[in-house]
């Protein structure tokens, strides 16, 4: 029979025997983290394992600096590290996209089109620059979108925000219903309506934002 540890015991095991602690952490939390990351956040298995590794590493590395009064505090600590790991992962993914600009020299070398090599080089470099600019544009619009989304969410009722966000994490309606104190059988409809409401509000914000930008441009010119 597998040993069963309480969370606070896990903490003690990590403190006293880090080697055993890794296995206990993995069995108790790592697998849950992995399944949650794949199921609720649509990550690939490689991505999910990367996050599990980072999270367990951070727990092992930083745990000696903390002490926990009870089981709940220890669980919250681990949970926050896990969420930070996912957030860092998203940010890092964006940074990698920004940092790389690889010119495909192999394309230059293995040219079978008979095109003038100098013109071909120029065309490929130009293509790279355009692609990079397009990526930059996407990144800009993504950050603007995030800001506008937060503004719209701020205008909503707390329970509406929670329902939208929890459903984006695929949290079951039953659990959400207990948390926001609304009848479970109505939540599906509320959620549908709220998504439409959110999209409408977001579109209005985007339009208003574009108008503001045009005004600024006109003033500049």
């Amino acid at each position, binding site marked *: 029979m597998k040993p069963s540890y309480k969370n606070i015991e896990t903490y003690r095991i990590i403190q006293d025997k880090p080697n055993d602690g890794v296995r206990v952490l993995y069995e108790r939390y790592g697998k*849950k983290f992995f399944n949650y990351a794949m199921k609720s956040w649509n990550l690939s298995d490689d991505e999910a394992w990367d996050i599990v590794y980072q999270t367990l590493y951070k727990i092992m590395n930083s745990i000696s600096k903390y002490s926990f009064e009870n089981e709940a505090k220890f669980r919250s600590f681990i949970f926050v590290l896990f969420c930070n790991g996912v957030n860092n992962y998203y940010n890092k993914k964006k940074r*990698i996209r920004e940092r790389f600009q690889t010119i495909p020299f192999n394309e230059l070398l293995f040219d079978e089109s008979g095109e003038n090599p100098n013109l071909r080089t120029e065309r490929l470099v130009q293509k790279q620059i355009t692609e990079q600019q397009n990526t930059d544009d996407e990144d800009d619009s993504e950050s603007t979108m995030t800001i506008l989304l937060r503004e719209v969410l701020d205008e909503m009722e707390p329970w509406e925000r*929670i329902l939208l966000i*929890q459903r984006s994490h695929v949290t079951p309606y039953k659990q959400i219903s207990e948390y926001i104190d609304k009848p479970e059988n109505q939540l599906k409809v509320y959620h549908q309506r709220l998504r439409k409401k959110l999209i409408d509000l977001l579109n209005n914000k985007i339009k208003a934002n574009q108008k503001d930008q045009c005004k600024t441009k006109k003033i500049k010119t």
Partner: protein
Amino acid sequence: MQNEENKNMNELDDLLRKSSLSDEKLFKENAPLLERSVFNEEHNSIPFYQKGEKIVKKLEKEFSQPNKDFNHKKWWLIAATIVILAGLSFILSKIINNEPVYKEIATTTVTKSKVTLPDNTTVWLNKNSKLTFNQKFPKREVTLIGEAFFDVTKNPDSPFIINSGNAEIKVLGTSFNVKQTPEETEVTVVTGKVILAQKEKENQKTKLLKAGYKGVFQEQSNKIKSEPNTNKNFLAWKTNTLIFERTPFRDVIKAISEFYGKEIILNDQGVGNCTINSTYKDQSFEEVLNEFKLILNIEYNYQGNTVIITGEPC
């Protein structure tokens, strides 16, 4: 139409999810319920189990050392005190007898050091290296095993001498890298001029190296070669930066293998000819490998401590 709507909804959910993790207010509002969901997650039929086992083994290896440290902290403290006391009494006896006291600065497989010598010369010591010198520093002279970068302060009256294997490196004021192995000593000059010579004074062979050049002294034959330095990454260990400009992947692998001290096998079926054009600064080994995955069509996996890379030609 329906597909388009679903796509929009998925994008909206994606945006909501990311915002809930990056925005403090949204996170606080949702954390208790999310926490409950994560810890209620079932994991009876976990797929890709092997990868999880690899993670555990890697972490166990990583954290096996602190285990000993933690349990035997007190004993380490006592042992360290004894060693320090013994060292002090040894130094005192040397001073009383007026014998030269040698100071030794050594790095381990994971540490690097920066040392300022009594004449204000700065030495950056790479991993697995050792620098020895007379503590009173009557002459500007040191002995090096391993690799170090020297920024020597100018003093026309007193040359700075580095003993490295059977080679001797003599300078007045300059900066350069010395890499010593049992087979050879390699000196790469960044600024100024350096004399690379055989230590044996009879029929002594010497070579004057200018900035941008590197000289290699071969221990067995006592021969000295010099040529322009073409390796952009000779100081990567100090700057933590690897630069590749149209570098064949095969050579990139050699450079990262040396830089990270990892054994890498490239199952080269053509991918070695692909070129990399990128700079890596302060990145971990895993991060660099994952970025290669993004640039080239490669996969990697671990066999023990060895990384096996396979890939398709570009």
